[in-house]
């Protein structure tokens, strides 16, 4: 039972990080119908950003803020340089381009930082444990608490922004029908920029949290995490904000439970099982768990 509680905490922790990344996939897809495969690599950019800033002597909070700004800048440059010129070129063209951008980013960082695995060392405070109960055997690290508080806060904040603010309403309108939204005076470019700012910032925070938790990082770390977060967005129903968040958490929990509970030898195939979940969900709910029944586009 304590083992189960422990795995659940690990799963929620990984799932929260997936959720942050999946939201970025989902809001950009909602507006542009673009599957931005370079999105996962932004968390790698964020990790290197934070790592360099810490090495330069910045304190952790400032390094994180700096890393978010760097990542947002990367996100905006990618949108402006790679995706905007292809806005009307069709979904296949931008999809291929996003893969190219992903490969470009990984190789750029390979060139500059070498493929070496590096360690993202946080102060000892983060690995201190709190005893939750169960005769002292259920514990939670401060890092886990930080992950839960930060992701919970960010998801609540972004969801409020999307529900209430002018840009948020404009964003939902564009997701439903960008042609009509433009005719209502909505500046699509402003909404797209806003989506990339939000998505990149969330990916940056996710990157720092991920590297803080799992310590080791390298230039290709973003790809697999990105693919899994994308799967999470699809399971939740791509384009849906709540779906992305729920799909992320669900996938993270399942991944850890697979790793812990599958019979000896099968546990190492946790990732394969994660994608099996994706296939099963899509078989029964082709639009994902929270997806709209029918998307209209014109």
């Amino acid at each position, binding site marked *: 039972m304590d083992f189960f509680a422990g795995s659940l905490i690990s799963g929620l922790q990984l799932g929260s990080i997936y959720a942050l990344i999946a939201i970025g996939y989902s809001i950009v897809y909602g507006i542009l119908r673009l599957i931005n495969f370079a999105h996962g690599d932004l968390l790698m950019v964020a990790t290197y950003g934070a790592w360099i800033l810490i090495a330069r002597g910045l304190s952790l909070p400032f390094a994180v803020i700096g890393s978010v700004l760097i990542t947002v800048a990367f996100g905006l440059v990618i949108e402006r340089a790679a995706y905007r010129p292809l806005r009307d070129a069709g979904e296949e063209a931008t999809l291929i381009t996003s893969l190219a951008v992903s490969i470009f980013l990984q190789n750029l960082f390979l060139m500059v930082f070498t493929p070496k695995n590096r360690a993202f060392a946080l102060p000892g405070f983060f690995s201190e444990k709190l005893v939750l109960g169960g005769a002292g055997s259920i514990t939670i690290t401060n890092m886990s608490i930080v992950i839960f508080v930060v992701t919970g806060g960010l998801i609540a904040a972004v969801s409020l922004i999307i529900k209430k*603010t*002018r*840009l948020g*309403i*404009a964003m*939902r*309108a564009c997701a*439903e*029908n960008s*042609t*009509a*939204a*433009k*005719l*209502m*005076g*909505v*500046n*699509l470019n402003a909404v797209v920029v806003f989506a990339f700012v939000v998505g990149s910032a969330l990916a940056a925070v996710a990157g720092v949290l991920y590297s803080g938790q799992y310590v080791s990082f390298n230039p290709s770390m973003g790809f697999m995490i990105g693919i899994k977060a994308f799967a999470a967005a699809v399971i939740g129903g791509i384009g849906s904000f709540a779906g992305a968040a729920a799909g992320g958490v669900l996938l993270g929990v399942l991944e850890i439970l697979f790793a812990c509970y599958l019979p000896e030898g099968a546990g190492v195939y946790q990732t394969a099982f994660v994608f099996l979940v994706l296939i099963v969900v899509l078989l029964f709910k082709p639009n994902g768990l929270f997806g*709209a029944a029918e998307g209209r586009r*014109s």
Partner: protein
Amino acid sequence: MLCNWKAMCVNRENILALRGLTMKYKSVVAVDNLSFAVEKGSICGLIGTNGAGKSTVVNMISGSSKPTSGEIIFKGARLDKLSPDRIAGLGVARTFQNLRIFGKLSALDNVRIAAQARHSYNFAQMALGTPHYRSQERAITESAQRILHRMGIGHYAEAEAGSLPYGHQRRLEIARCLALEPELLLLDEPAAGMNPNESVSLARDIRRVREETGTTILLIEHDMSVVMSLCEYIYVMDFGILIGEGDPDTIRRDPEVIRAYLGAEREYA
């Protein structure tokens, strides 16, 4: 109440003019060298059979498709090179033949989106929730509510737009356009799918909108009772060209119009 329009008539000023407007698709000429003008403050009709090119004309005026050649002049400025959001910003609003309301947003938010286009504040003001931002947001919400009431759907402000009855969704689409405070309102078959009672009441509301706001209306419509009762001037298109124009009585009697559109056998009331 029609005096408003008559007073404006004295000026005989055209708010919109099309000159030699042409739209060619690969082998089809959808609109061929079309020229006409819409007088400021009037309710003007554009009618024609299916495929006559009416909607193509609206698409070109609102900027969602670009003409192959020709000019669209709105208040003396060329529209034909501008993007749809710029054109909307200049005061041209449109509805769609097939509804394009934002179904997942509330009716109020549908209208607020358009109302917001006319208010400005920067991102920092929004993020910080400055008094300027708050007061503008309040003004936007109030004006959106007023417009919903004007279109007779004030009670549905918080309802999800996609769940409204069909006729109300059509009204919502017009309400959304009114929030842009347009000088020219393009209505693409607003009575499509409505029963005769609903059409009559919609026509009444459209006339009231013109009287209260003074906005010019270009009405594209199939429902002849709506066109004949509302429009002061009517243009008739057939196969992309203009085949007739005049006031409703002239149109009713124009032999070519009757042959092409109204049917050779009968005359419409």
